[in-house]
């Protein structure tokens, strides 16, 4: 009951979606369309679930006084502020429960939700990933060695692309005459991207695609059940 029925549902749903590709006629075509519409709503609930479980996990951590627990209070508070602002005064386009007075708009220049998003979140999020620029530089220096033919090839391709894909590439080899145009760094980089890179990526794409097909099939046929939790 707890495992059999979900497996049967998965089978019918998966099979219906596949069959509707080849048989557009009713009932297959329209059933699969409604099913996809339902998916949107269910996935909406799944996102809500994600945020609520984050809330729950943080409460548990605080309750159990897990290491660094005071920090989790900050996460909870910022989550709550964001949700309250969003519900009460709405977002840029959405009206909230309360009327947003001109006084408030004049004060912040925008709604509170958008203010937090623009000044706090955008900066936090952008900075978080720009940290990687530094790590990238130090990792390139400390860990990337031409130890084998493979890694040598990797490094050469990387350097050529890094040169060719910036303005410095076109400046460095801009003097090369037209007849030797293939030596121009941007052209070399374009060639690498268009042919050997595409070949490698395509091989990966085809093999990974087959992998996805295999696992989808296993899921639909009920052979792969790890998504149901446990073995």
């Amino acid at each position, binding site marked *: 009951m707890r495992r059999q029925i979900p497996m049967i549902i998965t089978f019918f749903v998966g099979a219906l979606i596949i069959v509707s590709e080849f048989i557009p006629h009713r009932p297959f*075509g329209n059933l699969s*369309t409604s099913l*996809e*519409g339902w*998916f*949107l709503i269910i*996935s*909406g609930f*799944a*996102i809500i679930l994600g945020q609520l479980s984050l809330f729950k996990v943080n409460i548990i951590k605080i309750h159990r006084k897990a290491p660094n627990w005071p920090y989790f209070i900050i996460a909870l508070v910022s989550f709550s502020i964001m949700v309250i602002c969003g519900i009460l005064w709405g977002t*840029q*386009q*959405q*009206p909230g429960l309360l009327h947003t007075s001109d006084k408030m708009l004049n004060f912040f220049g925008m709604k509170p939700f*958008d203010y937090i*998003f*623009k000044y706090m*979140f*955008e900066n936090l*999020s*952008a900075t*978080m*990933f720009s940290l990687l*620029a*530094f790590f*990238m*530089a*130090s990792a*390139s*220096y*400390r860990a*990337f*060695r*031409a130890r*084998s033919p493979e890694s040598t090839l990797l*490094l050469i391709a990387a*350097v050529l692309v*890094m*040169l060719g*894909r*910036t*303005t*410095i590439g*076109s*400046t460095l080899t*801009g003097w090369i005459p037209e007849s030797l145009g293939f030596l121009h760094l*941007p052209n070399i980089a*374009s060639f690498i*991207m*268009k042919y050997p*890179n*595409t070949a490698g*990526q*395509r091989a990966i*794409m085809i093999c990974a695609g087959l992998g996805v097909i295999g696992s989808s099939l296993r899921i639909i046929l009920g052979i792969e059940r790890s998504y149901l939790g446990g073995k």
Partner: protein
Amino acid sequence: MKIFEKFLHIDRRIIFLLILLGVAIPLIWTLGFNLEVTENVQSVYDLLQNLEPGTRILISFDYDPSTKPEIQPMAISLMQQAFTLRLRIIATALWPMGVQMCNEAYETVSAEYPDVKYGIDFINLGYKSGGMVTINHMAKDFRSTFPADAGGNPIDEFPIMKGIKNFDKIGCMISLSAGDPGLKQWVMIVHDTFGKPVAGGTTAVQAPTMLPYVNEQQQLVGLLGGLKGAAEYELLINKPGFATKGMDAQSVAHLIIILFILIGNIGYFATRKQKPKLEAK
């Protein structure tokens, strides 16, 4: 040999500092290296250029502030080009934060185009979850996927949405994408299932994995990859902006990194014979 030893042990804080300076200084004093337009960027430009005025195009904002520096300039340039050509934009987002990114881009661009009206030339339909499944649903029943715009107003109220039931009446689709769900899913559904042209702007991280789609079947018509792609596009529409300004900094930072890779490898080869490392292969 001492010097090579030193090559291997430069303090990482020095590297951090150099990268910081390498990016900051060219931002303050620009060097003005020249820029060349590549084939894939040109194709995206041509795609829009060849559409008839009044055609509706779908642009999806599938990114968030973490990749804003790379993708926002593309969004702005594409909007500028579209409004200049009198194309009409239907905006969607598969990432919730894409809605705000779209609003910000529209605010910037619409100031230059006073006769562009919301609901007639542009509409922001907001965020939908579900990735590929939802795109597939739009393709069959656009109006039930998007009963309302991002502000909750029914789409029947807007002239731009007249007659849009699926992708049939849409000229082309452009996904500005920073990952999953994004361009890959749009290619799979909009082009490979429903045969409409798809173009894309992605982060540089994504670009190499998307290139196999740029082929003679035109799964992807063209691709703007990272800040360089954005800068090339700014050059094409002749409106230099953030991306163009960043190109010098980008070049200098790349040079610094290449230099460090070289130093590291010289040090490695010069000192390798002294201490053999266990060969794992």
